């Protein structure tokens, strides 16, 4: 009894311990259920099993790989070799030779080389940018830079220097992210904001350690510089708080002091005869500022992009001359990054004045309700700004020579002083001549032909670039239409031309390219009368000069060539096409669907939106550069109840009076219970879809639409629990676009990072890009991944966009062509794409909820263009809605965007999925979901089992129920035509197998119950027994007395 009494405290504490454990285990099960998708993703579990009873005589591999072993299983190793091969080819073709003085490149065979920079090390090279799209490569999958250059015996690399960087750079913060406050605390505006650092080493340390070796490896000093970009991390510094980190010019995209010191020393060593040449290699996803770089005597500069696993091999190919560079820029390279008008309105902006009534700024739930961004520059993004302003300086119109917006110009605004390399620019180891330019109208297409001749000594390729100039008319000035002086409307790439060899190339330009969006007049696309010009050029500036020459201008008017020297154009490469009358009808309906085309984004234009009646805006206009160039960022105040009301997470559902509650869990087909596979050969509108959808239960429907965290959930058939189940497979989804993240083929056991979007676009070779993304599709097939959250088609509105590295270009047409190629490649192998981020999500700070304002012309002509091409031409099967607001409305809840434009005008038949939707944010809450599904958003990239988040408050609402049914239809249609159906025939049952952790959890619960009960019982006994026996003892003592 004494022992029991002595153990009482211990038993009590143990009882408390296990009681708490018991509560945690039971509460935890609820958490596990709500996050099953996330857990399965993290643990690599697919909880749905396919059981097929047929004899296998029917081929159910609807999407095949090109690589199989003899036993019929995937040959992962051969597949991966193929991925590396096409990636290396695309890398080599996309890298852009920016300059090459005195034929410094290619490097002569037998050269002894010194590699400088922390980025020369495998651990520091940026194979991709950062963020969810990043793929972490296994560096042992390929040779390091030094070995790559030495393996064929053509070069020798300074090993002491290379080792020095290897030893000291192991901890280099090459692209380290940190929140911006100098004291290390979270950046108070946006806790997701990140700032980049460059960990280049001090020249003095390097020189004292290994400087004596330079002379022995002095044929060339090759300096590697990297700049990162990141989801949640723009390359823009908030200068109010940033810690500068050694960047001169206070700009991450310019040099750091250590880089300046290194370049200064290297060029001095060249003067001293230690190095024969200095070569710079840029490992970036966005243009660096050239202001300081161009002040050094660097012989050659290669922009290498972010090439994934094949980076080093391709750098070797280009520097050695095995591959003649044929990449051309897809962004304008300027001296000062801030010379683009969009940069005035790039950054962290919050509403001014009284913000009472706005939803609380729940930054930890990714709901930024006080932030806004205004696209005041209108259509003048990238080269559209620089080239248009240049033309106006030549023509002496629009106050283009004024100093507004000038950053590096000596007097007023000068193209030569602001632009270093224009869009489309790139050098080669050979030279090309153009001749026999011709334009021929064939119905609604213009055939532009030109003959390209290789006039140099080595074989090479080059793209043929076709640009259009539309007339800037009086009507445009009156109605606020803007026209860029040149727009890319077509391109192709020559074959590999040997010295002296010629090829006549034809580029087809759709006559529809001549249309313009009229936001304030006709509110649709119009074709205006006037003189249009089609021209070819070696880059956009060259083409524009040819147009200017055709208009009668010359160097005397201030014309300069692409490198800033006075030059005439060549009018023989420009053709004037005169449209004799205005046509305001032809393009007012969609050529894809006949759906009316009219303003859908008045709620995002400050000029139109009724909630901002007291505000006005002046968009940048070529009619008066001086008067319209934004002097400072747009200051936005909340000035109406409507604005406040529209900014709420949900604003109420307009009931559809004709909507009726759908059938649930009912077999209505004359063929009995249907499985999804049975509809494989039927169109989207086939009546049998109604029967299939009638079989879905409410639970099936809301889980299919509402639970999509790295999956599209399967719908199992089970006689007992789901007797009308449709046997829809579970689809594994992963992040992209750099590669198939977090899921690898079995026999390869590592990830493949493909060249980044900018690098692929720089190839100007759609066929090659499709080949790369065909390989990407096979990586998905082999890894068992059916859906990819990519690819990314955001426009490089400014060079500071954190995700510029993922997407393609500052130009919508170029982005559209490359996006089409990628979509075709992935979908050809059965993959589901999520082209993203739809739309106007062009900066990272405040991206979750920021109110984005732009006019309809710029939205359609610049930002929607790539998506339109991918949907209309490539029939993209998935779109990812972005996390920002269009005006006041979250993009995923924007009916005009997702239904009127995407489905109405473009004929989209795929699924729209959210970006990662925090469950309690404006994108994840139940009321927001109800409105979003009506607007046309189908699937939530979120994991939840909470009834209220799964439309639990709308079970009797026919409007919401019908919208959910239609979303389920779209999702199932996409799944049905994807590789997820591989192995499924009409005999297949999809069975849900509860993941192992449930069993573990249940066993733990049982054990905890038993242990808790035992310990609690012992504790109770320790309380009771001594008392009972104590009393008995006392009473017997008394009776004895």
């Amino acid at each position, binding site marked *: 009894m004494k022992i029991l009494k002595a153990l009482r*405290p211990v038993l*009590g*504490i143990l009882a408390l311990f296990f009681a708490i454990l018991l509560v945690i285990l039971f509460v935890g099960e609820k958490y596990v259920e709500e996050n099953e998708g996330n857990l399965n993703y993290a643990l690599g579990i697919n909880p749905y099993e396919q059981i097929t009873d047929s004899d296998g005589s029917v081929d159910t591999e609807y999407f095949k790989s090109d690589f199989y072993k003899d036993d019929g299983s995937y040959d992962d190793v051969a597949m991966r070799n193929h991925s590396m091969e096409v990636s290396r080819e695309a890398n080599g073709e996309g890298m852009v030779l920016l300059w090459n003085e005195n034929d410094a490149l290619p490097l002569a065979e037998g050269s002894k080389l010194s590699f400088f920079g922390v980025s020369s090390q495998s651990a520091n090279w940026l194979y991709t940018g*950062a963020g*969810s799209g*990043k793929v972490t490569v296994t560096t042992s999958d390929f040779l390091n830079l030094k070995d790559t250059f030495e393996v064929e015996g053509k070069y020798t690399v300074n090993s002491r220097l290379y080792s020095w960087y290897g030893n000291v750079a192991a901890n280099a913060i090459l692209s380290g992210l940190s929140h911006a406050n100098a004291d290390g605390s*979270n950046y108070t505006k946006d806790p997701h904001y990140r700032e980049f650092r460059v960990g280049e080493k001090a020249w003095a340390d390097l020189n004292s350690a290994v400087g004596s070796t330079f002379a022995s490896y002095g044929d060339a000093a090759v300096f590697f510089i990297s700049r990162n970009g*990141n989801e949640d991390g723009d390359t823009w510094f908030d200068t109010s708080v940033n810690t500068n980190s050694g960047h001169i010019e206070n700009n991450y995209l310019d040099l750091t002091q250590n880089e300046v010191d290194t370049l200064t020393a290297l060029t001095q060593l060249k003067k001293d005869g230690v190095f024969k040449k200095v070569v710079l290699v840029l490992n970036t996803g966005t243009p660096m500022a050239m202001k300081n770089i161009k002040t050094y005597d660097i012989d050659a500069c290669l922009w290498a992009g972010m090439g994934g696993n094949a980076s080093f091999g391709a750098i070797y190919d280009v520097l050695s001359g095995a591959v003649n560079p044929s990449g051309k820029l897809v962004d304008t390279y300027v001296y000062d990054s801030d010379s683009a008008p969009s940069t005035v309105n790039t950054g962290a902006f919050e509403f001014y004045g009284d913000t009472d009534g706005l939803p609380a700024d729940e930054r930890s739930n990714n709901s930024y309700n006080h932030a806004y961004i205004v696209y005041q520059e209108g259509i003048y993004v990238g080269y559209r700004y620089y080239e248009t302003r240049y033309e106006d300086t030549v023509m002496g119109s629009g106050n283009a020579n004024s100093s507004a917006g000038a950053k590096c110009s000596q007097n007023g605004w000068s193209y030569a002083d602001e632009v270093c390399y224009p869009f489309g620019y790139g050098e080669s180891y050979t030279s090309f001549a153009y001749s026999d330019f011709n334009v021929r109208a064939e119905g609604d297409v213009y055939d532009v032909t030109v003959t390209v001749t290789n006039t140099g000594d080595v074989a090479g390729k080059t793209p043929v670039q076709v640009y259009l100039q539309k007339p800037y008319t009086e009507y445009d000035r009156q109605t606020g239409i803007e026209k860029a002086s040149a727009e890319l409307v077509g391109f192709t790439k020559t074959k590999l031309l040997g010295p002296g060899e010629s090829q006549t190339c034809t580029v087809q330009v759709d006559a529809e390219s001549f249309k313009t969006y009229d936001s304030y007049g006709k509110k649709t696309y119009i074709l205006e009368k006037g003189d249009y010009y089609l021209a070819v050029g070696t880059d956009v500036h060259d083409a524009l000069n040819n147009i200017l020459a055709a208009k009668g201008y010359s160097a005397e008017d201030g014309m300069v060539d692409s490198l800033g020297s006075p030059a005439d154009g060549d009018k023989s490469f420009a053709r004037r096409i005169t449209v004799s009358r205005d046509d305001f009808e032809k393009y007012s309906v969609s050529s894809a669907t006949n759906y009316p085309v009219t303003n859908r984004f008045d709620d995002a234009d400050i000029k139109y939106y009724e909630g901002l009646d007291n505000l006005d805006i002046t968009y940048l206009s070529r009619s008066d550069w001086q008067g319209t160039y934004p002097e400072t960022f747009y200051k936005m105040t909340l000035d109406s109840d409507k604005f406040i009301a529209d900014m709420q997470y949900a604003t109420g559902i307009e009931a559809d009076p004709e909507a009726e509650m759908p059938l649930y869990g009912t077999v209505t087909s004359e063929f009995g219970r249907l499985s999804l596979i049975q509809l494989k050969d039927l169109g989207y509108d086939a009546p049998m879809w109604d029967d299939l959808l009638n079989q879905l239960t409410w639970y099936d429907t809301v889980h299919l639409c509402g639970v999509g965290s790295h999956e599209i959930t399967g719908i199992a058939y089970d006689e007992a629990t789901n007797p009308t189940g449709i046997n829809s497979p579970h689809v594994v989804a992963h992040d992209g676009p750099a590669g198939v993240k977090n899921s690898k083929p079995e026999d390869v056991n590592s990830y493949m990072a493909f060249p980044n979007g900018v690098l692929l676009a720089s190839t100007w070779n759609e066929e090659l890009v499709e080949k790369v993304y065909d390989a990407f599709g096979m990586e998905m097939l082999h890894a068992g991944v059916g859906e990819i959250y990519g690819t990314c088609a955001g426009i490089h509105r400014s060079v500071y966009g954190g995700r510029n590295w993922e997407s393609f270009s500052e130009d919508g047409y170029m982005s559209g062509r490359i996006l089409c190629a990628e979509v075709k490649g992935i979908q050809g192998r059965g993959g589901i794409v999520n082209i993203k981020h739809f739309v106007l999500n062009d900066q990272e700070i405040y991206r979750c909820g920021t109110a984005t304002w732009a006019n309809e012309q710029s939205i359609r002509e610049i930002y929607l263009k790539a998506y339109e091409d991918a949907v209309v031409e490539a029939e993209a099967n998935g779109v990812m809605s972005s996390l920002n607001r269009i005006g006041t409305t979250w993009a995923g809840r924007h009916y005009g965007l997702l239904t009127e434009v995407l489905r109405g005008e473009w004929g989209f038949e795929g699924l729209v999925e959210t970006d990662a939707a925090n469950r309690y944010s404006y994108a994840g809450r139940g009321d927001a979901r109800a409105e979003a599904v009506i607007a046309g958003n189908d699937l939530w990239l979120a994991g939840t089992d909470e009834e209220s988040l799964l439309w639990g408050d709308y079970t009797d609402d026919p409007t919401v129920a019908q919208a959910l049914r239609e979303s389920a239809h779209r999702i199932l249609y996409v799944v049905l035509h994807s590789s997820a159906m591989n192995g499924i025939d009409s005999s297949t049952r999809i069975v849900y197998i509860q993941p192992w952790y449930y069993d573990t959890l249940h066993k733990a619960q049982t054990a905890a119950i038993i242990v808790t009960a035992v310990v609690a019982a012992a504790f109770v006994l320790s309380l009771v027994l001594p008392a009972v026996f104590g009393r008995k003892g006392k009473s017997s003592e008394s009776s004895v007395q």
Partner: protein
Amino acid sequence: MKKIRWGIIAGVCLVFVFYLTVGIVAGWMILDRIEAETTGHASLFQEGWQIALFVADVVFAAAMIGSAAMAIRNKVLAARGKVCAEVAK
């Protein structure tokens, strides 16, 4: 005056310290995993609930240490008292 059972209080505090610490670490790991999706890193004090857990953990840890110290002190005093009593005998 009723004798305070410092040992029991220390034990109860130990239980809470254990679970709070597990909660802090598990919460941080989950957040870090989420942040890792965008190549970020979570901090131990990123969210309000993390701070609350941490404060509670510190309070219970302090209480545990204090109670344990009191318990040990009482034991020592009791042992000394016993010795003194025996010596007095």
